[in-house]
């Protein structure tokens, strides 16, 4: 079965600055991916290359098995919802939506009608007159209604209120269940989004430092709290990504292969064993540069 997206030694340079350092990755079809990374890690760069808004300096990109550049058939299957849209400034919301409906051949009009009501879009307003939250809502509506087989949301939340975000996850999930498609969510609201994700990819300084399923990650990303010596003993040959001491107790965040035997051992030795939340894991892994204590 072919992949939704394949990247082979993708490199992107802006002058002397290297934004993507020869990354390799694959995205499987019909899964929900989370693309995480600090500001400037290269997420938007990567997503723009997938959508051919940008060109890679070296390497290959394939979408649904074909190269996307100037490929009308493939580009029609990709919907990239971007964070900003200055070029839309003078257009009315209804015009923007009308254009989107023409450009995406899988567009679902009745779904769009539903979404306009749910997200409370003001059709007659000019884009520049919308609040940040409304602009985000517009992007989300387009992404959802496009029904594009590869739908990418690049930081779709700016200014969106909690209720609208909840609505987004709700509708996204329900629609994905009924009409599966490959979805990529690039966001900073990590814990909020983690429940709906199946796989995550973490970019850091232009490199992919992690690419796995959330399931697998949860078995490897663990925090241990207890007496300092017990913690040290338990973690002596594990990769520690964060370590904090409070008096005689310590909390260690580890990321390593861990067996259920070890977990039971720890539990029975008066150590508090918890799974790291995705956000905490992300923070530690991106702060931890050397990979050792």
């Amino acid at each position: 079965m072919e992949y939704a997206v394949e990247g082979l030694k993708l490199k992107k340079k802006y002058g002397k600055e290297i934004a993507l350092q020869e990354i390799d990755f694959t995205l499987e079809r019909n899964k929900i991916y989370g693309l995480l990374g600090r500001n400037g890690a290269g997420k938007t760069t990567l997503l723009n290359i997938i959508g051919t808004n940008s060109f890679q300096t070296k390497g290959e990109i394939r979408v649904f098995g074909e190269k996307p550049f100037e490929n009308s058939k493939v580009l029609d299957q990709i919907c990239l919802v971007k964070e900003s849209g200055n070029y839309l400034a003078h257009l009315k919301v209804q015009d923007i939506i009308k254009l989107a409906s023409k450009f995406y051949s899988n567009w679902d009009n009745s779904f769009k009608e539903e979404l306009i009501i749910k997200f409370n879009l003001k059709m007659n307003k000019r884009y520049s007159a919308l609040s940040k939250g409304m602009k985000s809502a517009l992007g989300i509506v387009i992404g959802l209604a496009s029904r594009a087989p590869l739908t990418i949301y690049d930081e779709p939340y700016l200014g969106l209120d909690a209720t609208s975000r909840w609505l987004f996850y709700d509708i996204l999930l329900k629609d994905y269940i009924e009409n599966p498609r490959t979805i990529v969510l690039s966001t900073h609201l990590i814990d909020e989004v983690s429940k709906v994700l199946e796989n995550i990819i973490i970019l850091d300084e232009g490199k992919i430092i992690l690419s796995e399923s959330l399931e697998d990650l949860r078995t490897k990303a663990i925090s241990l709290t207890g007496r300092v010596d017990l913690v040290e003993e338990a973690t002596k040959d594990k990769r520690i990504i964060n370590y904090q001491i409070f008096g005689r107790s310590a909390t260690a965040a580890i990321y390593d292969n861990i067996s259920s035997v070890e977990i039971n051992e720890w539990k029975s030795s008066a150590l508090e064993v918890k799974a790291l939340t995705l956000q905490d894991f992300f923070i530690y892994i991106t702060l931890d540069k050397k990979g050792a204590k």
Partner: protein
Amino acid sequence: MNISLDDIKPIYLQISEGIEDDILKGILEEKEQALSTNQFAAQYQINPATAAKGINDLVEVGILYKKRGLGMFVAVGARKQILEKRKKEFFKVYITKMLIEAEKLGITKDEIFEMIKK
């Protein structure tokens, strides 16, 4: 059912145990229809693949079964099956935990027997 993100227990396991709890509590009765994978995922806002794993695990051990075209149903004898499994775990999890805590607090086994008798 509450899905806890920092519980060491994998989410799919929280799901299958949550459904088992519902069966034990009588919220779900035998031969009654349970939520399908998709309904479950939509209701709790979790990824369907994760929900599927939790539910399919229960199907595999025979606690739930699928009626084609109709959905997921609770098997006859599910309650008994779950009770047996839980009893075994009870000793492993609760008793052991209690003993560890007792050791931490310096409570002897005799003191524990006394407390239980009361």
